[in-house]
């Protein structure tokens, strides 16, 4: 039986947010696209599962870059433009910070947030607001420049703050504001969403993070992230994209430096002009390119030079009481015994005890998400892959339970309620779970670390020269914009745009 067409314009490996965004954009321009997804549903980790009759969110804490209906940010606008109609719910707060010497819930809105910080650390309003406004200016420049690139002198004139902060780490820029440590601590909790300590994290990334989340707040889909993933997939299919589930791509076929198709695990050879890979460059260059001699040396060095960022460990519980009765009062709680992000980053290299926890009580953003009288509560750490690499198959279950127990005990002590007495359902997701369901290299969900040696601006500057095999693009957390569910849409669009530009250039050359 013949399951595939003889030829596609583009084959997308992986039907998660990045791959689906590529597919949507390419189909919108009339291209013939095939998406091959190894799992039996779309979304990668942007998904849900059902336990004991309750549907549970697998990974999405809060979606950035959506914005309110009348004033969409870039991801929200793209989804609207593509006809992907998601029932977004606004997350009611930024976060509850539980840090040494401070317990406070902070809310989105640059002024409001600054006022709330000022209430904790009097006399800091002006400076905190100024810092957030600087973030916002850089954020606006990033958005504009990603659409309309311009010359350096022009950039200096029109995007001064962006240019002048580009070469500095978050710590270097924040230091110039001379804020009391406690105020800096209150600005730091979101660091874990970009996954580098402030002495390494480019200020550009910090700016985008803060301006987007603090400026506009975040959203979640009513029917969990599966709603988002499925609606993207369904829309893509309605636009003519062929999506095939349970089809793992083993090989990307390359001849004379040009990709011309893929081979699946069941042996289908499928041809195309372009391939978009959601598989990590590490996997692609180490064993997916066929023949292997087509792997350029530069690709190998590039992969070796880059540091894999964070993976995920989550304990997700359905508890048999309403949240308030368990002393849980916030949608998100960021809890650390220090807010020194460099120290915390080191702590993430091991197997615990982990010192920085991210908790979500889903019901505060989505009240009907669990049956009456129950609530959903998750505790997440985002470790570096390093520590987990040493765990063997026979040790895995013991380590998994030890880490989970530590997280639950820590939060039980904090709430003054033993959460273990209320567990209706519990699911422990580990780096291995991520690797199992998505095949992400070493279970890494954050791609390559945002550092001063692997700076977003440098990635943008030299991105074109890093497309080493003609017709092969990458889309996923390992691509230019890095980690986060919102940025995956941007990564997917960038891969699609590269292909559309390439096609346009070829058309132009013909004429």
């Amino acid at each position, binding site marked *: *039986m*013949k*399951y*595939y067409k003889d030829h596609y314009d583009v084959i997308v490996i992986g039907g998660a947010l990045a791959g689906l965004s590529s597919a949507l954009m390419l189909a919108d321009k009339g291209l013939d696209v095939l998406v091959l997804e190894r799992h*039996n549903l779309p979304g990668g980790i942007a998904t849900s*599962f059902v336990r004991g*009759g309750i*549907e549970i969110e697998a990974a999405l804490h809060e979606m950035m870059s959506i914005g309110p209906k009348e004033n969409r940010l870039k991801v929200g606008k793209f989804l609207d433009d593509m006809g992907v109609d998601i029932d977004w719910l606004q997350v009611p707060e930024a976060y509850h910070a539980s840090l040494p010497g401070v317990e406070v819930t902070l809310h989105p809105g640059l002024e409001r947030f600054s006022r709330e910080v000022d209430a904790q650390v009097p006399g800091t309003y002006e400076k905190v607001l100024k810092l957030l406004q600087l973030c916002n200016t850089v954020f606006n420049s990033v958005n504009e420049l990603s659409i309309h690139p311009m010359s*350096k002198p022009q950039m*200096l004139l029109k995007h*001064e*703050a962006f*240019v*002048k*902060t*580009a*070469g*500095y780490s978050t710590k*270097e*820029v924040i230091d110039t504001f001379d804020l009391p440590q406690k105020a800096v601590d209150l600005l730091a909790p979101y660091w874990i969403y970009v996954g580098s300590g402030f002495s390494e994290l*480019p200020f550009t990334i910090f700016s985008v993070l803060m301006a987007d989340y603090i400026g506009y707040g975040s959203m979640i889909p009513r*029917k*969990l992230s*599966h*709603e988002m993933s*499925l609606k993207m997939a369904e829309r893509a299919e309605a636009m003519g994209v062929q999506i095939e589930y349970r089809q793992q791509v083993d090989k990307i076929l390359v001849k004379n430096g040009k990709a011309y198709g893929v081979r699946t695990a*069941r042996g*289908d050879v499928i041809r195309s002009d372009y391939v978009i890979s959601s598989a990590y460059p*590490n*996997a692609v*260059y*180490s064993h997916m390119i066929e023949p292997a001699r087509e*792997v350029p*040396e530069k690709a*190998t*060095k590039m*992969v*070796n030079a880059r540091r894999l960022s964070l*993976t995920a460990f989550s304990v997700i519980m359905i508890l*048999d009481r309403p949240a308030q009765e368990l002393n849980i009062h916030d949608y998100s709680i960021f809890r650390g015994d220090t807010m020194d992000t460099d120290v915390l980053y080191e702590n993430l290299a091991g197997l615990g005890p982990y010192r920085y926890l991210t908790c979500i009580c889903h019901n505060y953003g989505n009240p009907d998400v669990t049956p009456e009288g129950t609530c959903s509560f998750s505790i997440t750490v985002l470790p570096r892959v390093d520590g987990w690499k040493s*765990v063997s*198959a*026979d040790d895995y*279950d013991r380590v998994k*339970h030890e880490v989970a127990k530590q997280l639950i005990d820590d939060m039980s002590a904090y709430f003054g309620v033993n959460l*273990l007495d209320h*567990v209706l359902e519990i699911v422990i997701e580990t*780096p*291995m779970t991520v*690797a199992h369901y998505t095949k992400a*290299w*070493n*279970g890494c969900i954050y791609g390559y670390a945002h550092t*001063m*040696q*692997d700076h977003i*601006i*440098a990635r943008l*500057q*030299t991105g074109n020269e890093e497309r080493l095999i003609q017709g092969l693009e990458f889309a996923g957390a390992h691509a230019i914009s890095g980690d986060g569910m919102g940025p995956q849409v941007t990564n997917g669009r960038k891969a699609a745009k590269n292909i559309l530009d390439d096609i346009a250039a070829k058309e132009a050359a013909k004429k």
Partner: protein
Amino acid sequence: MKIKNFLKDVGGASRVTKARLDAFANASPSLETVDPIGDVAREWHPGRIELVITDIRDACRTAKTIRLERPDGKKLPPFYAGQYIVLDFEIGQSRISRPYSISSAPYEARGEHPFVEITVRRSKGDGFICDYVNSELKVGDHLTGTLACGQFYYEPLRDARNVVALAGGVGITPFASMAKEIAAGKLNVDLTILYGSVSSDDIVLKDELERVCEEAGVKNASGDEGKGSVRIVHVLSGDEPDWKGERGFLSAELIRKYSAEDTTYFICGPQVMYTFLRRELQKLDIPKRRVRFEVFGQAKDITAFPGYPMEVKDKTFRLTVVQGIARQEIPAKATESLVVALERAGIRIETGCRSGECGFCRTKVLSGSCYVCPENDGRREADKDFGYVHACAAYPTSDMTIKIPIS
């Protein structure tokens, strides 16, 4: 504005670009190809694997235990006691899969001579395949299977240390696995199995379980908190004058008698037992989190469920099956699930629990209608909105077109 000084400030982009290119230039040219986290994931979940039957023995008058190993003698994937294996069979034209609770212990899959065992009753319920497994399979036969699956296992962060297992018939198998793991000192649980059978020679794995109980010892006998215990209480419903043990069904009264203050109940057995036990457990006022049912299984008679459209029950519909750009038409009986129709036609669809829970057989309905077994509707909300069904729990009520993964 100024961060440090003008030249340093405006040179930022060039500086970071150079830093990145320098890092590339100085990197090692030999590629690190190891993915140890992925390797552990693959060791636990290798997908479909080759298996060979190395032993078949009687588990009682009416059931057999089948031992499976890897042809190369390597370890089988780790699993939790209570999980199941999905075995594939090709019988005539049909390509069929079935889940079986693993009756051997997890440690036995990881030892010197690794194996897993399943225990299968002859001609109970799903007779066709049970007969095949009981009479056709021979030592030395090769088959394929996927393990381990399922959520029916002891979770120390959720369940009480005191566990009362309520087992009926061949539903003893997950508890046999659990008991052996406890006896080996690998699972720290105090397990009491209340095992309902009709007659004493129907008791599956009787001798084996008695041995396991002896090995494990009774609760607190050793005074070692780090070690679990196992006891088994047989309950006979048939009329057997010489029987000295408990009689009747697994009633609320009986359950109370063998329960400790904080107890988690695990239930596995035939569908009629589930209906009965739901009522009995209600009488005991047990918190919801302390009760764990194994999945329901394929509905024995779908027409008995509320809302089933009786007017279609004798019909056979036309099922158009889309895989990729290919289409084929097959017949589908109203009273058989879409999975059964596909298997009969020799079209392989991945299945796991066959109870609507695991979602392996997630299928898109492109047109037509079907009835979803309410006992087995484990779908995601958004999936319901877009016409997805779990094909093992969906029964056609009109001609249909469905899309399933290429197999």
